[in-house]
């Protein structure tokens, strides 16, 4: 069911290399009544304020409602991006609900696994394996 969909943040930002880096956030309602934020693009020090703001608005405007961040189309995350997810998770807990993430892949899955934030956000996918049993 896709009751309503709205794009809450499109932030085109020019990265040092000259290619535009942007983050697009689409908010939809999930099948079980949760709010789903689909995050597309790259989440770093420049783009994370958009996610921080979106999460704050969603959690504060619909208290008690579970929030899911879908990372399927996120191609990059750095420590600032992880911070945004941690802040959202803490806010959700304080509002009596929880924030989960799903569909992390590639470098995003690796960063969330290494920091241990994957467990906090209840990401179910198995950790990526590296050449010596560690994170890839």
């Amino acid at each position, binding site marked *: 069911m896709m009751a309503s969909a709205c794009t809450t943040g499109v932030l085109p930002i020019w990265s040092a290399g000259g290619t535009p880096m942007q983050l697009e956030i689409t908010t939809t309602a999930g099948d079980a009544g949760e709010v789903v934020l689909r995050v597309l693009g790259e989440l770093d020090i420049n783009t994370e304020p958009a996610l921080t703001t979106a999460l704050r608005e969603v959690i504060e405007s619909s208290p008690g409602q579970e929030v899911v961040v879908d990372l399927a189309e996120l191609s990059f995350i750095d420590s*600032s991006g992880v911070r945004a997810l941690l802040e959202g998770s803490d806010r959700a807990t304080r509002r009596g609900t929880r924030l989960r993430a799903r569909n992390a892949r590639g470098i995003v899955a690796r960063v969330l696994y290494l920091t*241990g934030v994957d467990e906090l956000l209840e990401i179910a996918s198995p950790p990526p394996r590296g050449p010596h049993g560690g994170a890839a």
Partner: protein
Amino acid sequence: MAPVPPMDDPALAAWYAALCDVVRRGHLMLPDQLPAEVNAALRPVGLKITIYLVDLEQRAMRPIAESGRPGAQVLPVDGTLPGRVFSTVTAVATGEPAGPYRLWLPLVDGSERLGVAEIVTERPPAEPDLLLERCLALVGLIGHLIAAKMPYGDTLRRLRRTRSMSPAGELLLSMLPPLTFTCRDMVVSSILEPSYDVGGDAFDYAVDGLVARLAVFDAMGRGLRAGLTCAVAMAAIRAARRDGRDLVAMTRAADAAITDLFSDFRYVTGVVAELDLETGILRYVNAGHPQPLLMRRGRAVRALTGGRRLPMGIRDDRTDVGSEALERGDRLLLYTDGVVEARGPDGEPFGEQRLVDLAERGANDELPTPETLRRLSHSIQDHQQGPPRDDATMMLTEWSGTAPTRAIP
């Protein structure tokens, strides 16, 4: 007991007097007066010394200027004889039969590589081995003297810099211990890039009795904000460590310090470890950091996956401590994610496999531990070919009786 040298030997008495004079002059000398004062003390024994300090990127060595003497040239570390003396921590003598006799000696404070010293005598010595032995002792003393004098002025620090330091770099560098420490059973050596604009990376260690405590840190974000977060975590961990608290308590002390001061969910990833130098038992807590790499007989045998908790600054009630039994000769590589994420011009990250390959190659080259690390770090920079996106820090610890002998002159 060693035989008492005959002090009625006038040459030996002159050497003894010269060494005493160096120590005596040391009390009042300014850092930048060091070459002139040492040369004044060495005049009676017919030696002239030039002291070169290596720059922070460990690529070239620059002479400490001495007024009234022509400036000596800058010496690259790679591809020169003095560079080889620096990198292998091994003295070399050169000289033609008729000309002056020249010794190049590694300049270290303990085992911290500072540069090289060039000592020239007018005539070839009658006993070259004896001269070398005496010059090694002299330059050993000068290495300690430079380290002792460095904090009292900016001249020597400036000489080691090829460009200006960012405030974040200044903050973090002031907190770091020397890059290399060696004792009978262990060498620990670290390297941190970029040397002048470090953001949130740092390392720390302390060796007391039979326990070595090791740590690397990587604070989120960039610049001075990240530097400050890292400094806070590092100070909290040091305070807890010096209070005799255990690994879990150290990371919790960092949690408390970060959350007391900042409310924006900033965090520091890191590994805090302790190695028993008698048994080789390594215990560690990994706070959201890349897993330490264990190297055995020249091969990377595994990543250490235990002791996990969330990054410091994010509350975590777990008390897991990882444990690993090291064998003599094992190497432990701690590194921050800037090492494996350093991107080449094509955008391809350096990657863990490349780090493993280069670390394995380095493990078999029989070089001093700090030199293995210097070459590893330069390989990463060569891959990157440009300003790094993130700090890259490595700490290599070698638990063995042979590595220490390679790290000192």
